[in-house]
């Protein structure tokens, strides 16, 4: 009985800490993409549907992590310089005036990796611990 409670407490604590711990974010593209690095500002513009001033003939399509996930909160704050609520409001103005839709959201690092490798030209972000050799890291956000 006590053991069970201890286990539950341990799981809850683990959950709390892993939620709040700050991960290094890796911005990734497929190996075939001809871009090796991107500036935070370019990434911000790309994710906010503004002309991103990338090098000529490179077109990147951003994808997002699931709303409410700790990684998305961190990315939204550090790169987009907004809270998730401000971001929701920003997209509501663009979307409902027919000026663009927000990046598609994916559930976790594994599905983001899958999308990035399956669709060259897609840019995503994951916890840098999840990076593998199938993708190229173009920016690390500590």
């Amino acid at each position, binding site marked *: 009985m006590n053991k069970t409670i201890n286990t539950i407490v341990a799981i809850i604590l683990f959950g709390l800490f892993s939620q709040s711990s700050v991960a290094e974010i890796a911005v990734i593209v497929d190996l075939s993409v001809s871009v090796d690095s991107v500036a935070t500002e370019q990434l911000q513009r790309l994710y906010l549907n*503004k002309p991103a001033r990338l090098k000529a003939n490179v077109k990147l399509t951003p994808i*997002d992590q*699931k*709303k409410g996930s700790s990684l998305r909160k961190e990315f939204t704050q550090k790169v987009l310089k907004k809270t998730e*609520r401000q971001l*929701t409001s920003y997209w509501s103005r663009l979307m409902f005036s*027919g000026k663009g*839709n927000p990046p598609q959201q994916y559930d976790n690092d594994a599905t983001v990796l899958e999308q990035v490798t399956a669709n060259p030209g897609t840019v995503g972000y994951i916890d840098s611990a999840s990076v593998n050799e199938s993708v190229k890291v173009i920016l690390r956000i500590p």
Partner: protein
Amino acid sequence: MHKQVYAAVATTLLLSHAGSLFAIGNIELNGFSTVGATISNSSIDSQNGNITDDVGFDQDTRIGLQVSADINEKISLTAQILGDARADSNFDATFDWAFINYTFSDIVSVRGGRIKFPTFLISDYFEVGYAYPWIRPPAEVYGGNPINVITGVDVLLRAGLGPVDLLVQPYFGTAKNEDALVPQEALPFFGLSPGSVKYAEFDAKNMAGINVALSNEFFTLRGGYIQTDVSAADFGITSSEDVTFSSVGATLDWHNVIVYSEAFKRDIDGLANGFFPNQKGWYGTLGYRVNRFLPHITYAQLRDDSSSSDIGMGLEQDSLTLGVRYELGAGADLKVEAQRVEPNNGSRGLFMEPTDDINVYSVAVDVIF
């Protein structure tokens, strides 16, 4: 847009997908809704009959659904259906937007079809209550142009100019069977009771406009100009009369300080001026965000800007609005407002008849999904 869709919607749409309410392949469904109640302290109703001294839901309650589909890399299609009870209580759905977009590059795109054009700062998302602080944008300005949708084309030209982004948006099109309120005195042959108003149907042709906006992370500054030819067969105005519309506006969202301010001027030539007066108006809104609360105050003014050839009583008024917006988590808010409306001496303002000052109280919930 977000996943905390209301239970009823969520259970009926189990296909719900991350990123939007519903997405299969290249088709996305999103939406917005407002449920709002109003009551005033006067027996004199608002001109559209929706704000009275009984609790009413017709003024602000509405729902919009937007479908967008990527046809290929360059072409996409967007349609928005709006159901509201403002013009009649049947809650009929209409297409507010329905256009095909062609993206030449991330700098140039062209849209053709049914387009909501930006007379003002938030004209093109006027129905999306969640996207702005008030329950309804100030009527003294937003009522100035009774047309908000054209059938035609527009071009979105975007450029980054160092720290700011420039949007240049020319548009061209027509609008048919639009309604505008006309004072009874201007319509002697209709035999209406003194002081009342009537919806007049009119057409706008050759509407050419431009919207120019400069923005960065925390401000937007815009200006616009529209020119169109208006005719109203019901009143014998068969030749087209020139109407022009100029507007400027700015908004700021900086360190929890929220500012909105806009001004406009409407000029109408010839015979039509007797029915639709020249007008000018402005408003200013100041708010300060405290956590989930956004208390705000708005002063707004509408004036006739007319020549002596005008017939009819003015539609002039001032108003002071105090409101609070409260965030109910991402994608939903609750708003409460108290508004003091003062029709200018002898004018009916935006009410049915000339009246003393009127208080209007409103509450609304906005969601997007």
